[in-house]
């Protein structure tokens, strides 16, 4: 067998990717029920990532697949769009957690609390629930308020992030994980019990009916619309991630992750920089929370358990902590497994059972083995790809460009003393 020379492998040829996408899109169009065709279409994004083409072309093509191809072939199938928007919601959340865990290295096990804050903010004020404690005709707000609430949810969650961060960020490492875990549970329990003395969250009964977003009188209640809303939000979050990663702030985060002491001695104020990471990560979760509430039309505290936090953490670690494409992939894989593959497999086995081919005890239903599957997945990743599916890589600088523009700028920083001391000696 010929050995493949991976060094020489520049990536998948563009033609192959294009053909793959076209074939699966067509398959999906004609075999509407085929899960494989749907997954194949989604996988074309992964293929694209590894394609040998310049980045701009890849981005344009990726956008076409997401915005045109998928809605065109799967848009009329409520179920696929539901899965796709669910994937989107988790991708967006994982990207938020990636800032906290991946960049800044702060192990946050209560991340879902910020998600809950955003979700409850919209849920409470857009349903008759609000009239339990504010008697005003102004409330409840209509679905048109969904849009401003994206910003309000962001701000509320960011405030939560700072309030949590201030006391908590004094501890680090394992201690931080435990403290944030506790905080996440506290928030959930507060929401669970805040139905008395004043009924604010309606306790364990949850809040419903949360209105769907409205735009110019158009009610966006189907997953089809949410797919696009989520897509726009992800685009913004990815852009923010990329910009932060290669900025003064992003470098400070990574520096703190790598070595807190050294970072401090470089003049980085630990608490401020960590708080920024917490607030930014939280604010993304807050925005997604608002979308989640509007999509589900019903929320209760059970949507915000510790397992959710751990699930999102799993996505980040599986994909590659600190790696933006990795986290997107990790979140997609975990979510698809969770909401689609295992259920489909269950259904398939049930159908076999009904036709009498197989006698499956109820306890062996695959959809009950979610945790087991994730556990195994995580073990394999830890063994074979310890840095995640797509490991994080720091961006290289364009040295030629620096070399070219360096002389024109003169000597900078401390090196400006060079010319001074030289001229000082001459005079």
């Amino acid at each position, binding site marked *: 067998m010929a050995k493949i020379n991976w060094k020489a492998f520049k990536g998948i040829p563009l033609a192959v990717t294009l053909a793959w996408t076209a074939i699966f899109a067509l398959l999906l169009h004609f075999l509407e029920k085929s899960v494989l065709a749907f997954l194949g279409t989604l996988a074309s994004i992964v293929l694209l990532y590894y394609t040998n083409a310049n980045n701009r072309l890849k981005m344009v093509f990726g956008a076409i697949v997401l915005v045109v191809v998928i809605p065109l072939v799967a848009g009329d199938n409520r179920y696929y769009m539901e899965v796709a928007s669910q994937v989107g919601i988790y991708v967006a959340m994982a990207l938020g957690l990636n800032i906290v865990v991946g960049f800044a290295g702060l192990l946050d096990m209560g991340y879902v609390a910020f998600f809950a804050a955003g979700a409850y903010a919209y849920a409470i004020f857009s349903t008759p629930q609000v009239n339990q404690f504010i008697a005003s005709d102004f409330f409840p707000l209509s679905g048109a308020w969904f849009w401003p609430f994206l910003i309000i949810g962001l701000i509320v969650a960011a405030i939560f992030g700072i309030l949590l961060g201030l006391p908590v960020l004094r501890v680090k490492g394992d201690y931080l994980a435990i403290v944030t875990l506790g905080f996440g549970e506290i928030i959930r329990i507060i929401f669970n019990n805040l139905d008395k003395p004043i009924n604010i969250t309606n306790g364990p009964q949850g809040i419903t009916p949360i209105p769907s977003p409205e735009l110019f009188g158009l009610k966006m209640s189907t997953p089809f619309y949410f797919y696009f809303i989520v897509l726009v939000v992800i685009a913004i979050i990815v852009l*923010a991630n990329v*910009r*932060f990663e290669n*900025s*003064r*702030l992003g*470098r*400070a985060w*990574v*520096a703190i992750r*790598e*070595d807190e*002491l*050294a*970072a*401090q*001695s*470089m*003049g*980085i*104020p*630990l608490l401020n920089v960590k708080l*920024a990471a917490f607030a*930014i990560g939280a604010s993304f979760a807050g925005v997604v929370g608002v979308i989640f509430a509007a999509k589900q039309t019903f929320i209760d505290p059970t949507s915000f358990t510790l397992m959710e936090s751990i699930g999102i953490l799993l996505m980040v670690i599986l994909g590659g902590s600190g790696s933006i494409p990795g986290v997107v992939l990790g979140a997609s894989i975990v979510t698809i497994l969770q909401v689609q593959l295992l259920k489909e497999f269950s259904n398939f086995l049930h159908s076999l059972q009904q036709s009498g081919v197989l006698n499956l005890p109820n306890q062996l239903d695959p959809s009950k083995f979610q945790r087991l599957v994730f556990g195994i997945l995580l073990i394999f990743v830890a063994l074979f790809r310890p840095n995640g599916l797509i490991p*994080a890589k*720091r961006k*290289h*600088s364009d*040295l030629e460009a*620096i*070399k070219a*523009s*360096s002389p024109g*700028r003169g*000597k*900078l*920083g*401390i*090196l400006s*003393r*060079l010319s*001074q*001391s030289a001229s000082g000696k001459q005079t």
Partner: protein
Amino acid sequence: MALLEAVGLTKRFGGLVANDNITVRIEKGSITAVIGPNGAGKTTFFNMITGFYEPDEGDILLNGHSIKGLRPDQVATRGIARTFQNIRLFKQMTALENVMVGIHSRLSAGMLGILFKTRKVREEEELARIEAYQLLEYVGIADIANEEAGNLPYGLQRRLEIARALATNPQIILLDEPAAGMNPRETLEMTEFIRRLKRELDLTIILIEHDMKLVMGLSEYIHVLDYGRKIAEGTPEQIRNNPRVIEAYLGKSTSEVS
């Protein structure tokens, strides 16, 4: 007036007095060494100066102003940079980025500026990148600017750590065992390099070092610590002949004991 003055610094860890009433004056533009046997309290002294430990007693004056009680990052922005005994680079960042972290506190980009990538932020970033590159050139490792710091050989890591410290634009640089683990030729190079820092960049240098050849050849003034106390100070010549120093390093001679 001395550039840096430590007055009666004392630090206790439980019952152990790591630094006992240490007073040191550092003149501007000097190279000063702090020496002493293992466990003498040299690194504790550095950690107090740089804000990592708060002294139990005493005061630290920089240009006559107290910097006692400031956080390490505040001390750094006031012009005191340091390197570490066991090199502490940001291993997964590139060499260039390591140096850019040192420039952090002189940049002003805020969250919104970064998010919208304003022109000011872009220009600031570009300048920081160039400055970092120039620093790498200065310490002679510009060709590895895009390498991950953790992958560099030991000697280059030492240089990179110094470049990173220089990036904070300090007046004083504290070097904790800059020649540790180096062979004689590398040590000689390091000596020459430290001299160059002082001469060309107008830096004041304080160093901890065990290599006596380097200490005696390089420093203008030496403070000797033993068991947390300062037992001597003076020029290399004075220190070399000081009986208390010899005793601290070699122990009492048997003839004296008997």
